[in-house]
């Protein structure tokens, strides 16, 4: 019997990177599929399915083309195709690759092969490209990590290299350090620059099957019957799975385990997983999917948080004590009511933050395999291998020692890959059933259903001040739209209040946050989890207060700054705090004093600040083990091997680990190998979330490296005949402090240590949070962090009164990261954060369908309808690093990956007020909304005094 009807393969000749390939292609296969899966040239990436993102860009006869929109059979005979693998030569990296590596442009690296090829084509035309020319040339390549800032730098550097004008790369180091503080290349930069980095979908195993997931077309329905017999009967289909095979409920937070890998009784959002199958190829899997019959009994969907709270609302989960309420947190600190009634002035407002998606360019992908002894290995695009490990063991009902989770190179995450997912469980289960490797590569639409994006929040805030401009109370009430499952929602409810009490403080505080279930894709943690939304509201309220009191908004923030070494109103311990310095820097750089309030109509400045955590006091499941573990082994060859469970999601945590080891062990960074996020090989680290990695894994690495350095130092001291305290190291050597010429290579030093102990030289380090952090009340530890980062932004906008379009001309972003272990990477995190926040302010919105018969459908779940910014319109971002030297962080370091996102949204709103006198309290700022607000303001002005206030 045959599988689904398919047209026959045809033999074609392709010229790729100078080689001639004869390859038999199916007529429906795109050039991208042939390059990746037939020729193994996996440097060309697949991001959006259909020509919206540019990750698949290759050069055809020197011109950038979209390989995903080109059928292989359409490629002209003789055309020369260049992929990223063809860019480097025997002489080394192409200047573009070298410059991208040097400039920090390779964060997750997933979009960059296409980006570099577009840059290459540009530089083939000119070696003196202007800013606008660079932006235009890269306008078809979406990047989600960098905010394009370091990409522009890289293209200019590449041009300078080609003109022979670029200085050689000199990383340098901070004073008192040999490595740290230097602008080092990333540990995996060369792999990402050449297309050699292996991402999940680049993994191809022999006999591998391809999986597909059948998803619910209903927002809310009971599953009456599933009949998979026809699908199973299709030749080429190896297994079909339904929910009854995986009944266990799971969730990232152990107290709210409400998810199932495949729905059993009912479905709760459009796109929920209902069945899954594995087949010999993707075409067969697609055909089989349509043969699965599911009978649903539709239920009325709950599509708004208000509807979820109606007394007679349909229950999304039956039998829950609190019905559709996931979690309510109601906390008060001090007498808020008295402070409000005694206030000199109270600013009251209603604010709305629409949900947004992470939209990393890499879609979720998982490969699972089972060996003959039953060890299940899962390669997944996850940022939490440890929690995936635990979940697989639980749901598959196999011991944890039978599971290995490996996170390959990750093409962006931003919090969207920090839950254990159904597709990971299903892939493993299908591999167990079939005895063959199984891959699931979600399409772009499926990533929008998998979601876990930013929660929509409706926020009501009252902010009070006394006559001196001291803030006396904040009263906040927030309704949070959680979507269909809990995910991190328990934490979200707390974070929506707990992370708001600094840097601008107030004497009393009450917050009442309620997260509810709705029949939408589940929300979760997106960069700045839980606090970006209330920060938006609060910083606008502060701006309104400044105007009400006649005080400069920067001055009002100064007056209410909580300062360092203090405790916030809700009991959080602040150690280092560089906020005032951040404010000073952006005030000066933006010309604030001369320009604020004085720019012509249509042009304005706005300011906002924020803080964020560097990890949380408690792991998501209670235990006394370290939150982060590092093991380092030295080798007589003169290298160190750092093993750590931490997830490098593009932020550069592998580089951070390598630099710390190099610093402590006197090595050049490239003599350090890092093995991370492989649960078989690396000690547990809880994952890349809550901005915890640099702080926690950094300290663990420091501890391990220092222990090893002590051993080596002792051995070297004996050899040199000097006290251990007089031995130091750096740049690949160990030597006498008194006589630096007396010493040896690191290899010789490590060999001495190995010989002196008679065993390999290795050590472990761990990080455990101080358990005394946080307020002495229920929930007081949530949001309690060993250190907080601080940020201030000033934004300059131009508002086009005709169209309502907000053009952000410039963002000055100053961020206190404690100490920059690698300034290039810190700047990349800041610029990327600014970009992502700006994008949420001006264009991004995960919303439901306009109308039609299925109101639970997502509007345009693809990268054309869900617009993320291109290189052309992304603002000019100027980054400033402020270093407050945290007493507890590794070398003084704190987080830099999430905090800098927060201020940009309210700063834009505040700048719009300065520009045109209109308050924007609802996100996103669509031009239509802005224009309407302008019209209302004009009508109000015309009607005043005694106007109706309406228009």
């Amino acid at each position, binding site marked *: 019997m045959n599988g*689904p009807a398919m047209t026959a393969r045809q033999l074609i000749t392709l010229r790729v990177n100078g080689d001639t390939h004869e390859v038999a292609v199916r007529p429906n296969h795109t050039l991208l599929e042939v390059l990746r899966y037939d020729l193994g040239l996996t440097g060309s990436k697949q991001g959006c399915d259909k020509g919206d993102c540019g990750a698949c860009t290759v050069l055809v006869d020197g011109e950038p*083309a979209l390989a995903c929109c080109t059928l292989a059979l*359409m490629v002209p005979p003789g055309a020369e195709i260049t992929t990223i693998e063809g860019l480097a030569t025997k002489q080394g990296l192409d200047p573009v690759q070298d410059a991208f590596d040097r400039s920090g442009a390779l964060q997750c690296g997933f979009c960059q092969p296409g980006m570099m090829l577009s840059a290459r084509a540009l530089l083939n035309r000119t070696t003196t490209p202007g800013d606008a020319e660079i932006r235009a040339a890269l306008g078809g390549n979406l990047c989600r990590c960098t905010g394009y800032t370091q990409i522009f730098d890289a293209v200019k550097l590449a041009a300078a290299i080609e003109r022979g004008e670029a200085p050689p790369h000199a990383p340098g180091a901070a004073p008192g350090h040999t490595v740290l503080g230097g602008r080092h290349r990333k540990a995996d930069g060369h792999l990402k620059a050449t297309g050699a980095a292996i991402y999940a979908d680049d993994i191809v195993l022999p006999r591998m099957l391809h999986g597909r997931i059948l998803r619910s077309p209903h927002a809310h329905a009971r599953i009456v019957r599933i009949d998979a017999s026809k699908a199973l009967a299709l030749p080429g289909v190896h297994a079909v799975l339904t929910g009854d095979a995986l009944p266990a409920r799971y969730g990232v937070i152990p107290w709210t385990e409400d998810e199932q890998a495949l729905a059993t009784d009912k479905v709760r959002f459009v796109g929920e997983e209902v069945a899954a199958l594995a087949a010999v190829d*993707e075409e067969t899997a697609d055909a089989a999917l349509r043969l699965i019959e599911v009978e649903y009994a539709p239920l009325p969907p709950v599509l708004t948080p208000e509807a979820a709270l109606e007394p007679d609302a349909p229950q999304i989960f039956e039998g829950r004590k609190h019905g559709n309420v996931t979690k309510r947190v109601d906390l008060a600190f001090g007498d808020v009511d008295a402070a409000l009634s005694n206030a000199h002035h109270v600013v009251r407002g209603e604010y709305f933050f629409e949900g947004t998606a992470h939209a990393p360019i890499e879609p979720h992908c998982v490969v699972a395999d089972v060996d003959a002894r039953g060890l299940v290995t899962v390669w997944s695009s996850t940022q939490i291998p440890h929690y995936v490990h635990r979940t697989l063991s639980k749901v598959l009902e196999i011991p944890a020692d039978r599971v290995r989770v490996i996170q390959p190179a990750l093409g962006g995450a931003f919090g969207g890959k920090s839950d254990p997912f159904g597709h990971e469980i299903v892939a493993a289960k299908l591999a167990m059933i079939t005895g063959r490797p199984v891959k699931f590569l979600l399409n772009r639409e499926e990533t929008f259903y998998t979601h876990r994006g930013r929660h929509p929040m409706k926020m009501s805030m009252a902010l009070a001040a006394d006559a001196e401009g001291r803030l006396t109370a904040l009263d906040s009430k927030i309704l949070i739209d959680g979507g269909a499952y809990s995910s991190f929602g328990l934490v979200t409810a707390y974070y929506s209040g707990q992370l708001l009490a600094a840097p601008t403080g107030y004497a009393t505080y009450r917050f009442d946050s309620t997260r509810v279930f709705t029949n939408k894709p589940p929300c979760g943690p997106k960069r700045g989890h839980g606090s970006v939304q209330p920060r938006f509201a609060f910083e606008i309220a502060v701006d309104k207060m400044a105007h009400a009191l006649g005080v400069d908004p920067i001055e009002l923030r100064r007056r209410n700054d909580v300062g360092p070494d203090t405790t916030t109103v809700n009991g959080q311990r602040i150690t280092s705090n560089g906020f005032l310095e951040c404010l000073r820097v952006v005030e000066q750089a933006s010309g604030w004093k001369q320009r604020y309030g004085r720019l012509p109509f249509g042009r304005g400045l706005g300011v906002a600040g924020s803080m964020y955590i560097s990890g949380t006091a408690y792991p998501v499941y209670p235990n006394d083990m370290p939150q982060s573990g590092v093991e380092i082994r030295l080798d007589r060859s003169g290298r160190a091997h750092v093993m750590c469970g931490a997830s490098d999601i593009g932020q550069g945590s592998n580089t951070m680990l390598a630099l710390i080891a190099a610093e402590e062990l006197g090595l050049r960074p490239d003599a350090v190998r890092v093995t991370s996020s492989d649960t078989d090989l690396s000690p547990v680290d809880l994952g890349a979330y809550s901005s915890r990695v640099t702080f926690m894994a950094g300290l663990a690495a420091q501890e391990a490296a220092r222990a090893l350095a002590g051993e080596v130092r002792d051995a070297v001291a004996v050899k040199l005949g000097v006290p251990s305290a007089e031995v130091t190291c750096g740049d690949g050597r160990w030597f006498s402090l008194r006589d630096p010429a007396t010493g040896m290579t690191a290899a010789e030093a490590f060999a001495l240590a190995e010989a002196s102990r008679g065993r390999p030289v290795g050590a472990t380090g761990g990080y455990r949070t101080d358990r005394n952090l946080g307020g002495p009340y229920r929930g007081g530890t949530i949001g309690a962090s060993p250190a907080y980062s601080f940020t201030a932004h000033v934004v300059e906008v131009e508002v086009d009164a005709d*169209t*309502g379009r907000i053009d952000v001309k410039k963002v000055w972003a100053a961020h206190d990261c404690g100490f920059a272990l690698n300034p290039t990477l810190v700047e990349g995190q800041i610029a990327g954060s600014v970009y992502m926040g700006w994008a949420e302010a001006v264009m991004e919105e995960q919303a439901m369908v306009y109308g*039609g*018969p299925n109101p639970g459908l997502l509007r*345009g779940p693809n990268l054309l309808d869900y617009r993320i910014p291109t290189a052309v319109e992304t603002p000019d971002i100027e980054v400033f690093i402020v270093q407050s030297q945290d007493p507890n962080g590794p070398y003084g370091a704190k987080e830099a990956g999430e905090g800098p996102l927060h201020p940009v949204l309210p700063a834009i709103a505040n700048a719009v007020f300065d520009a045109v006198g209109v308050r924007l309290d609802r996100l996103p700022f669509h*031009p239509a909304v802005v224009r309407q607000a302008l019209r209302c303001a004009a009508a109000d002005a015309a009607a005043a005094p005694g106007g109706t206030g309406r228009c």
Partner: protein
Amino acid sequence: MLRIAPTFTVETPTTVDEVVALLQRHGPEARVVAGGTDVMPNLKHGLYEPKVLVSLGRVQGLDGLDLSGDPLSLGALVTLHRLAEHPEVRHLLPSLAAAVGHVAGPQHRRMGTLGGNVCLDTRCVYINQTYFWREALGFCIKKDGTECHVTRTGKKCVAAASNDSAPPLLTLDARLEIVGVGGRREVALDDFYVNDGVKNNALAQGEVVTRILVPRPAPIRRFGFDKLRIRESVDFPMLNVAVAFDLVDGQARRPDIVVSAIAARPRRVKGLPEGLLNHVLVAEWGEKAFQSTRPLPNINGDVEWRREMVPVLVRRAVAAATE
């Protein structure tokens, strides 16, 4: 990843005659593809289900530009990038060069062709989605269904013309050279587009556009274009406007304005006054254009806002024309 259904073969003819023969042989089961930037996503979405895909990529003689005579001749396979960057095209046909320079992103413009853009399929928020999504919606009248979710009541598809080349080409009085079984014919672009979102052009089965013919513009004729979009790259129009008028001694004569990305057919604004070209006249043109434009929620963007932007774009297109 979204895979294209494995149900068609690809033909790569090298002459127009072969193309026509293939189209004739396979009838409605054949579909023409040039650059592929529109056809490939539509295949991935299951909007097209051809048995035979006829690729024009190897057809000789369709990528010529002849700007020496009258009419100017633009081969159907000339890429959008080449047109947008071509100095003489930018000089002679500035609004067309600007418009095709606004299409999508750099890669699309290097792949996409003028013929392909002229024949671009209509777009709608309810149609340019995956099969799963469209099925979950209950499909629509353009493909696989019977309802229109935009108008809710109507039985006519209102998907919008979304090609940026159409408005300027209409103001240039362009004609299309079309080859089919019956031989060669010419049709005015004005007669080419029809008001049916399912298929908004008059291309008959078995026909292919081979050249775009543009009467050589008089030196006194001015042309301008503007496009409403959220992003500055890779964004279909929420509205696009082309203007043309003669300008002699400050007097604007024979004004012509085409507004598109509204309905299936680009709309020519009627009753435009002539006169001294100043902000009053341009405001009158804008008002006329506004009055004749009724956007629908068929593509992204607030409907009222899109309508209000019509006079703004008219003003900006006029400004571009007089730069």
